[in-house]
């Protein structure tokens, strides 16, 4: 084979290998679709609108947080807040499963960020229609820009206005700046892979199709742009951002961008707390390895702070 032909052969082989769109999915992985979080039993267990479909007047007065997880995660990400709420009996936690998440690789690949957001909207509408008076939202990582987008588009104007919004390690800028090039590199990558600890297996997707990475980039870029133009909270809605000072997933500067772009209805600044942590979504410790006492104390302090703001 001539040299030129050899180079061309190697080049096209590399492209074909790089464009491999069929990851090696094992049955134990969430990606397989055999450990779905989207089955009715799971949804009934996690959504307040499902397991409290005929609320009493007392229940309608109790604060309820709609908790939205991050990219590739599941409702598992907010299990510890729910356990905390169950132990304190001062608020409820409704854990929404984002569209396309917790199902299968194919479902994930086919969903766009509006699909991810749809389950937050659905649960909000149901709780508002049921008559819950004190609705809050919590968004971790990608859950945060999904909620910020709802504020920007005026979604809440047609329903009970949320009392407050808590954002934990919101992502507006990715720490890995290669994500900004996903439009160019995506088709070559096909998908990326993430290492999970034993306790995380079956609860996060292992494979990230480039189509979903593009959706993530589109969402965070839109949110950054909207923040530059300015986003105003509905009248009476409180907001607080909790952000790890070191975060290899959601760049900590995301908190600065939210602080600069968000305003209360009166034109004031929102609350931001930069916490001493190196964990991404520091409120989720279950399934992690090497959790320290400081991590546990910070998680409990944050949950108590959220509770105090809902039950002043």
């Amino acid at each position, binding site marked *: 084979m001539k040299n030129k032909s050899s180079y061309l052969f190697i080049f096209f082989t590399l492209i074909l290998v790089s464009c491999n769109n069929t990851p090696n999915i094992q049955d134990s992985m969430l990606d397989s679709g055999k450990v779905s979080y989207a089955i009715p039993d799971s949804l009934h267990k996690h959504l307040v609108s499902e397991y409290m479909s005929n609320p009493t007047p007392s229940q309608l007065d109790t604060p309820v947080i709609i908790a939205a997880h991050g990219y590739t995660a599941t409702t598992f990400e907010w299990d510890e807040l729910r356990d905390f709420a169950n132990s304190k009996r001062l608020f409820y936690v409704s854990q929404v499963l984002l569209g396309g998440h917790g199902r299968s690789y194919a479902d994930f690949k086919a969903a766009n960020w509006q699909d991810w957001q749809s389950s937050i909207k659905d649960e909000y509408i149901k709780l508002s229609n049921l008559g819950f008076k004190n609705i809050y939202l919590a968004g971790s990582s990608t859950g945060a820009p999904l909620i910020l987008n709802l504020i920007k588009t005026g979604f809440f104007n047609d329903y009970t206005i949320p009392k407050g919004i808590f954002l934990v390690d919101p992502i507006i*800028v990715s720490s890995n700046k290669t994500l900004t090039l996903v439009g160019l590199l995506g088709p070559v990558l096909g998908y990326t892979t993430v290492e999970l600890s034993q306790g995380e297996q079956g609860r996060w997707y292992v494979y990230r199709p480039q189509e979903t990475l593009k959706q993530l980039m589109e969402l965070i870029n839109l949110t950054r742009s909207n923040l530059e*133009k300015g986003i105003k909270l509905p009248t009476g809605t409180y907001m607080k951002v909790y952000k790890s000072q070191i975060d290899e997933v959601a760049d*900590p*500067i995301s908190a600065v961008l939210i602080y600069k772009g968000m305003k209360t209805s009166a034109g004031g600044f929102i609350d931001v707390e930069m916490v001493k942590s190196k964990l991404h979504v520091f409120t989720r410790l279950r399934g992690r390895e090497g959790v320290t006492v400081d991590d546990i104390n910070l998680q409990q302090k944050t949950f108590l702070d959220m509770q105090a703001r809902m039950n002043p």
Partner: protein
Amino acid sequence: MCFVHLDAQDSNSDELGVGLRFQKTEQLYWENGVGIDYTSSFLLKKHIHLKMSYFTSGLGSAMFENALLQDNFVVGFDWRFRPQKNLNFFVGLNTGFFNVDLINATFNSLPQNSMLFSAETGFFYKFKFPLATSLSVGYNFINGNGIDRPGTLFPVYYQLSVFYYIK
């Protein structure tokens, strides 16, 4: 706009241009400012151009919106492949200093400064009158990582410069 003196026909003379620089970072801000371009026959027969620039989001995305205010001071050099021709292809290396204003003491724990180091390539065109323009794409080898470098330091940027040659 950068101002440059066009003496393309006189290979022994110095060339000094000053002008404006317009930069768009991929998935981030417009940052605009000023720049200088200098070459001389002793710089390998004008194959090498020395340059210096200052550009800021204050003259771009942060001028009318809530973008963060960030400043870049850059020095570097280009290799021009056809220094005597009006249309040139070039490659270059830059280094410098980056600073972002994080607004509030709440964010004092975050990195605000960084060294810059980038590679750039593009086209440079000299008009018959003392103006020149360049269009290039660059890659920042140092960019934000969520740990110890400013988060709004992104890798890829596109740059347009316009020079007026004063010498």
